[in-house]
């Protein structure tokens, strides 16, 4: 059976679909967080080197991974919107940005809290943390540019170009920061030792899936408001039960 994907790329159909999907991602996300953290805190053993502090990785690592992936996904959506002029893709891109930025922030915050007991400093200029900081700046740039252009079409297109430029730059930035880091013999934060216990891996994987589902749920919920805002003059919005009441 062929699914008509294009049907769902129309904002009017996607609005309803997204509404139905949000709880299907939100609740499993919450449950998986509970399971993952239970394994992380009660099943996984204490790390031989890092003691109990290592348990921060169950939020830090998923948040770092999410922030990187969400930027790339955002750039991909933005590029789709720019090239094929599909309104929904651009809306998805702007819905993804805040969630991605928050994950980047969580990653930085937890990285700092991990660094203090491990390195004795709140902030170490480690390649990954530094790249994460720059990634947060890139998110800020995207959000700020989008926010300061009044015409939504121009805002979508301009920030799409910026997102593409940023995603091309991310590997270059990461490589250059890493290069800089080794040159200065900076500290390297290593969370994933060779002796990672199976339960640790399981817990991290489960919280990562939970983060994915959380991000999807948030994005879908946010894009619904964006769709309503952009399509406010259309007939179908006026006929929605939540608008008519």
């Amino acid at each position, binding site marked *: 059976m062929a699914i008509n994907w294009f049907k769902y790329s129309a904002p009017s159909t996607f609005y309803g679909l997204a509404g139905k999907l949000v709880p299907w991602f939100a609740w499993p996300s919450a449950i998986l967080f509970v399971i993952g953290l239970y394994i992380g805190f009660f099943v996984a053993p204490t790390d031989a080197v890092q003691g109990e502090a290592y348990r921060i990785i169950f939020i830090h690592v998923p948040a770092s991974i999410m922030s990187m992936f969400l930027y790339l996904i955002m750039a991909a959506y933005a590029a789709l919107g720019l090239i094929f002029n599909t309104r929904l893709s651009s809306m998805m891109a702007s819905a993804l940005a805040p969630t991605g930025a928050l994950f980047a922030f969580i990653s930085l915050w937890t990285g700092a809290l991990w660094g203090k007991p491990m390195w004795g400093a709140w902030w170490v200029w480690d390649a990954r943390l530094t790249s994460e900081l720059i990634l947060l*700046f*890139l998110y800020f740039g995207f959000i700020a540019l989008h926010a300061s252009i009044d015409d939504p079409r*121009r805002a979508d297109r*301009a920030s799409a170009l910026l997102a593409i430029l940023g995603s091309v*730059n991310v590997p270059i*930035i990461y490589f250059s920061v890493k290069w800089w880091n080794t040159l200065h013999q900076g500290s390297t934060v290593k969370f994933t030792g060779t002796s990672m216990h199976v339960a640790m891996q399981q817990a991290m994987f489960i919280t990562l899936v939970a983060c994915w589902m959380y991000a999807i749920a948030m994005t879908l919920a946010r894009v619904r408001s964006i769709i309503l805002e952009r399509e406010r003059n259309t007939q179908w919005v006026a006929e929605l039960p939540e608008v008519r009441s």
Partner: protein
Amino acid sequence: MNKLSLFGLLRLVISRDLMLAMRRRADVLTTLIFFVMVVSLFPLGVGPELGMLRKMAPGVVWVAALLASMLSLGRMFSADYLDGTLEQMLLAPQSLSVLVLGKILAHWMLSGLPLVLMAPVLGLQFDMSVQSLWVLIASLLLGTPVLSMIGAVGAALTLGLRGGGVLVSLLVLPLCIPVLIFGTGAVEAAASGMSVASHLSLLGALLVLALVFTPWVTAQALRISME
């Protein structure tokens, strides 16, 4: 009346921007003076100990160059946007990318090149060795055009926006980090007696990469902003 060649167009745009800048000389000088002032403030901030200054010098000069080149980005397209020349540029029957490249080169000659020429003098304030100074010049020579090119994209994207000046720095500065790293890296390598070839060739690679893509991206950004 002859048809203008692509190279002729490039020359026309560059000479036009240089001519305009020469009639508004103050703008060029402000950028340069800003650069000199920022660099000179550092010893006042951290103390005049020569050993530390020598160690800081490449970073200070490069960061100051980065900030100074941000200053003039706002002017890159805005005057042409306000008086309608940009509309005519978009309607030029030649490649808009070439035209944009001309504007970028002119911008570099007016804001980047003076910094390159001024940098060795400032390096002396920091007691840099002669060899380091040469590497500093080389790294700035390779790096500042990249700053102008990335900056052009930012300037085109923020055309005509309120608060465009601050916004353009927010967009462009993170993207300039690799240039900063390789630029300062080269000078530091020279100071510690290591080979500078790898740094400079990476900078060169960035320059080529930017030269190939940014004029086109800037042209697209201008079209988006003119809607």
